[in-house]
């Protein structure tokens, strides 16, 4: 058994594949590829796949992390080229290596929200959005396991930058807490909606850009 951590992207139409369906998609893809991976024990054994941080439905990512154990003696480095032909459009392994740290050490996520304004006046809102994310406290109401709860984004969101992409698009990029508390890219939009409704865009697109450990090293 060889431990293996794969970094993969999930972009385009594939962003609508749910977390559970993505697990199944990988299971089928591994079987197609002929790469033998460890199966779960029990009555219905199936390929064992572990994903670090489930991605929200509709969010794209270029930094997903997947752990498996390979039965055959093969180098992790060649895994992406062996697996990629068997994956659906939009899902692509970028690299694979021996994991150097535990999944639990994943701490921060850099992500972006692209806000679309159909009136073509995206640039005019830049300053106000910057001001919003610079506030000392930025409370949002968020669904938790125990119903609705409050979360202050200010201590959990940093390195915010706001970029004018086009007349209609503003892109907010930020470093957010990945766990305890979990801040999703969509929470950045919640902050806008709930604290500055006049800035609410007509549509928003989300993307995960990088994942880091506690020392801000890209998570490998």
């Amino acid at each position, binding site marked *: 058994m060889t431990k293996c951590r794969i970094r993969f992207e999930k972009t385009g*139409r594939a962003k609508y594949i749910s977390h559970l369906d993505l697990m199944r998609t990988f*299971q089928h893809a591994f079987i197609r590829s002929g790469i033998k991976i460890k199966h779960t024990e029990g009555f219905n054994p199936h390929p064992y796949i572990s994903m670090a941080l489930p991605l929200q*439905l509709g969010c794209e990512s270029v930094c997903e992390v997947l752990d498996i154990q390979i039965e055959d003696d093969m180098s992790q480095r060649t895994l992406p080229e062996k697996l990629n032909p068997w994956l659906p459009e939009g899902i692509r392994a970028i690299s694979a290596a021996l994991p150097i740290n535990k999944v639990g050490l994943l701490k921060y996520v850099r992500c972006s929200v692209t806000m679309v304004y159909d009136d073509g006046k995206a640039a005019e809102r830049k300053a106000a959005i910057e001001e919003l994310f610079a506030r000392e406290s930025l409370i949002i109401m968020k669904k938790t396991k125990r119903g609705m709860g409050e979360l202050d984004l200010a201590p959990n969101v940093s390195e915010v930058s706001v970029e004018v992409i086009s007349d209609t698009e503003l892109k907010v990029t930020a470093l957010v807490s990945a766990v305890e508390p979990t801040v999703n890219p969509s929470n950045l939009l919640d902050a806008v909606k709930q604290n500055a409704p006049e800035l609410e865009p007509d549509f928003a697109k989300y993307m995960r850009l990088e994942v880091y450990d506690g020392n801000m090293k890209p998570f490998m």
Partner: protein
Amino acid sequence: MYAFCVQYIYDWRYRMEQRIERILPKVQKPARYTGGEYGEIMKNKDEVDVRFALCFPDTYEIGMSNLGLRILYGVLNNMDGVWCERVFEPWRDMAEEMRKEGIPLYALESGDPVKDFDIIGFSVGYEMSYLGILDMLDLAGLPLRSADRKELTPLVFAGGTCMYNPEPIADFIDLAVIGEGEEADAEITELYRKAKKEGWSKPQFLNEAAKIQGIYVPSLYQHEYNEDGTIKSITPKGDAPAVVTKRIIENLDESYFPTNTIVPSTEIVHDRTVLELFRGCVRGCRFCQAGYVYRPIRRKKCDTLVKQGIEALKNSGYEEISLSSLSTSDYKELTGLCDGLLEWCEPRKVSLSLPSLRADNFSMELMKKVQKVRKSGLTFAPEAGSQRMRDVINKNVTEEDILNSCRTAFEGGWSTVKLYFMMGLPTETDEDIIAIADLAFKVLNTWKKYATNKARGVKITVSTSCFVPKPMSPFQWEAQDSMEEFLRKQQLLKDSMRSKAISYSWHDSTVSFIEAVLALGDRRLAPVLESVFKRSGGLAAWEEFFSEDAWNEAFEENGVDPHFYANREKGRDEILPWSTISAGVKTEHLWEERERSRRAEITPDCRNQCANCGARKLSKEGRCDD
């Protein structure tokens, strides 16, 4: 492996996605509406001259589970210059968003609007999905009626089991393919290509199409009615034949089978590899339309099946393979087939499932085979409770057969058994209903006597459906029980159940009644379907969208008596709406079988004695079950 064109993906992303992307976050299970699955076929639009929209009038999850759809997708895409794409009926939330935003129905592969396709082909296997056809045409932005679509393009047609009586949807489709579509769909596509190139009018094309065997053009048949509402005459026009005979594929070993097919990225109903063993059935159960319309029996060789099964599993990555046919235990080389597949499957932890086993020859050996990897519940379909009733329907299964099979199952460690029955069969009495409860009780006693593992307890489930007389079966002349009668019988059976270990569930008779109306109906139902669609939309096969009120109001509004179709016994000489269509089985044979049923007389299965039904004439060499 597949023609893959990055540019078209970009087209999709930047042209359609802009609008579709905004509604997808608002709907349930958006992966159903995006395409992009592993194995989908992309082609360069500049290199194709026929765009084919293969439409399934139900959800993605149901449609992608349909083997026929996958076969036709492969056959059509194997044609040069043809790009066949998939279209399913969106769930209500998606349809509402699409209508609100003015997004027309689009094909999953290219994202292009269906209305811009050359050919729109519907696969129709269930009468309740007729409203889905209207829903999809409406979402596409096309006129519902064939007569209102004046141009050749887009050509709208339908195929599938329901087309043995296409009359209820006759006014909506340009033509119907009767029988198996592998060759006929390709011939229609070729003829269309020629017509388009030469600039034919739609009537010119339809007249030519009617000359192809198996093609039924409803507009070329004039229906006239008697005062009592029955059909007086059906007159063909132009080059249309008096009777359209169905198409069959003679050699299934040589015919296309999808071993390299789409693997959905979201869970579908039958999320596994499906292997088709044979078409047709030797049994001749008199209620069963499929048993008659798929004749003659054509089986695939064991070697072909093992090869195709393994190939399909390798290419899909599925961990389950299911053997499909009308009666799997009647496949002559079943043991060899299971052995051949299991040899490959077992070391790879792939499981094999065998639906459609008959209660009479269910063997311990076979059971042990399917049990090797995984064990699921067992389902038997005695169809009727009393021996007399089983003889009437020619089920050819005895109580002893059923109990022996159950004993084998219980001894083998099974503890969950489902028993399927039908209610409202011709000549049925209350004794026949009570016999269902008696039989279930005997199954329970068999468990008590023979179960090897009683600690787990037993679960026996009895389900009853409401009998729907179907065209082209010996019971095509029968009247369906009234809804009140079904309710009474359901209550009677419920009261007759003798143990808490037996649970009873039944189908809603309202749906079965509408099903009968649509199965036995004629073209006068067109305005009814339009009214129902206006009132309650598509997806009528789904309980949450089926509206009894909508149907009743629609019948009322259009002056149509639904009982005329469903609850009236038809005479021997009555012209039935599907009289212009032949499945190869002689009407005299069907009538003879009906007469025998009245005498509770069984007909031996085709293997014991050929009943001379006429279907073997469909094969060039007169072959059947060789």
